[in-house]
């Protein structure tokens, strides 16, 4: 026997913006990734506290490239935030512009980081410090690359006209990752570039 009634409330159907399950999934992923970086930085401080001074062995790394790099990354987050706001209001051009700008800024970060890596007098296997430096910044760089890939795919999908003000959960989800990459960089930056200057 089936009796049918229609519920009095209307519910949204499917993933919609921040209501998407994927949004929660991404938050959980970010939580676990952030923990990964926490353990990486723990390893850094642990090994630092067990090494005879001076630490870092070659003095604190130069800020000449790191500060522009940080600014570039932060700017990339801001442009992405602006782009996401655009699509929330139905302005597709703004999303495209935001994605493009963030992509460019992300690439700029990678170039800066690449120059910095190339200028290091040591390699991955030179010392504990160099192992830590290349591993941790390398981990971060890998995350930037994934972030760029996400932005590129989002750009492609925007080109296919998949997103509008009602349906853009992929953008909202991808953006979290991009912001996460920036925030983690600040922690890495603080650890490697600022902390040694503070004693």
């Amino acid at each position, binding site marked *: 026997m089936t009796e049918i009634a229609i519920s009095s409330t209307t519910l949204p159907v499917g993933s919609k913006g921040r209501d998407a399950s994927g949004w929660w999934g991404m938050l959980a992923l970010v939580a676990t990734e952030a923990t990964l970086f926490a353990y990486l930085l723990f390893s850094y401080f*642990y090994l630092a*506290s*067990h090494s005879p001074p001076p630490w870092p062995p070659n003095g604190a790394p130069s800020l000449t490239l790191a500060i522009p790099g940080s600014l570039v990354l932060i700017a990339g987050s801001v442009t992405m935030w602006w782009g996401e706001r655009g699509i929330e209001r139905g302005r597709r051009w703004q999303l495209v512009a935001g994605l493009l700008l963030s992509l460019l800024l992300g690439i700029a970060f990678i170039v800066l980081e690449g120059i910095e890596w190339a200028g290091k007098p040591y390699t991955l296997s030179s010392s504990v410090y160099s192992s830590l430096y290349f591993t941790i910044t390398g981990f971060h760089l890998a995350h930037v690359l994934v972030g760029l890939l996400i932005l590129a795919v989002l750009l492609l999908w925007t080109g296919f006209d998949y997103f509008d003000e009602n349906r853009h959960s992929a953008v909202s989800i991808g953006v979290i990752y991009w912001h996460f990459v920036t925030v983690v960089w600040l922690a890495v930056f*603080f650890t490697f570039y600022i902390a040694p*200057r*503070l*004693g």
Partner: protein
Amino acid sequence: MQRLTMPARWLQLLLALACAARTAPAMAHGATIGQLGWNWEGWVLASLAVAVFGYVRGLLRMDAGAREHVFGPGRYAAFAAGIGVLFVALISPLDALDDQLFSAHMLQHMLLILVAPPLLVWGRPATAWLWAFELPARRSIGRFWMGAPGVQRGIRFLMRPLAVWVLSSFALWFWHLPGPYDWALDNAWVHAGEHLCFFLTALAFWSLVLAPYGRRQLDYGSSLLFVGTLGMQMGLLGAILTFATRPVYLAHAHTTLAWGLSLLEDQQLAGLIMWVPAGLVYTGTMAVLFVAWLHDAERKAVTAMRAGRRTRALQGVGTLSLLLAVLALSGCHDKAATSPWQISGAQPARGPALIQHYGCGTCHTVPGVAQASGTVGPPLTQFGQRAYIAGMLHNNPDNLMMWLRDPQRVLPGNAMPNTGMTERDARDIAAYLYTLQ
């Protein structure tokens, strides 16, 4: 509603200043070993005294009934204990000891981060402080607050959970780097800044976690993560200090040995204080939050069923108070909130007409009342499930009727006018509101 949280911000600012005021005594950093006296520094004392005075004066000035509803022995005790802890941290010999021993300094920090702030926050001093002023002053404070949207917006931004999390983490790691740490011990102003950082971030942290005014910005699940992840950071930092094989902080080098500790042992002890006792405080807080979470769900569920049955969700609480003394901080024993209200002798059916008569609908959206779709005040939909009235009073019939009849007495200066409601009408309106599930 902003006007309610405003005093909380002021309180934070003032207490922070109280803390900052200890800069001058910190000048006495050259204290020789073993000279541990009370730090009877005027500014600190004066700030604490002003804090207490304002609190007491505000309470005294308040209407007894309102005081009973807004505060209560638990809140007074929490505030008093919080001030007591500040006293221990900033005036007792511990303050002098912190210059000599790293571990004592860590203990002081833990008091400033994990003990005093939650107690103070729970004491709802902001309300009492506001009351310490005369009515016109209260009004102008309120007007200033309402009229300065930039300030409000900035503070609201700073009070966002993510911002608080980031700032607390940053403060924790920054001040434990050897450079800033030693710097703070060298320079009294920096030292005050350090304590200010800890104390301010901790006040913000505990306001979010404890939600002393009953309105949670951060739901329970997120609160658990919020507390847990900060606790983990402090644990990791503690572990690094405990296991380091060389002394990292040299500021105490010339005093530690006199206390029978090597520099390394002192550092290990400090690390352990941050790790184990602090970890237990975080664990306890999480346990309290968890019980409150289930309790809240239970209350809502039961309320939703509109049946005044007993609930057993709280029974675990007693057991776990053995587990954690901190449980005393939780509001779990508010039995009143667990059952919906049936007001004897009331006629809820009269409600809609009365609500129309008194013009409530101009400001409030009230389901089932014609033309009651105002947006000035909060909507009264699902009123029967609310935990608090005006974000401050427990939602129970007595409080509701008192609030309906004389809102200005309960919370002077708030936007809800006295409408001259009779007791019977208030009774019927309250009964009606409780039918809104």
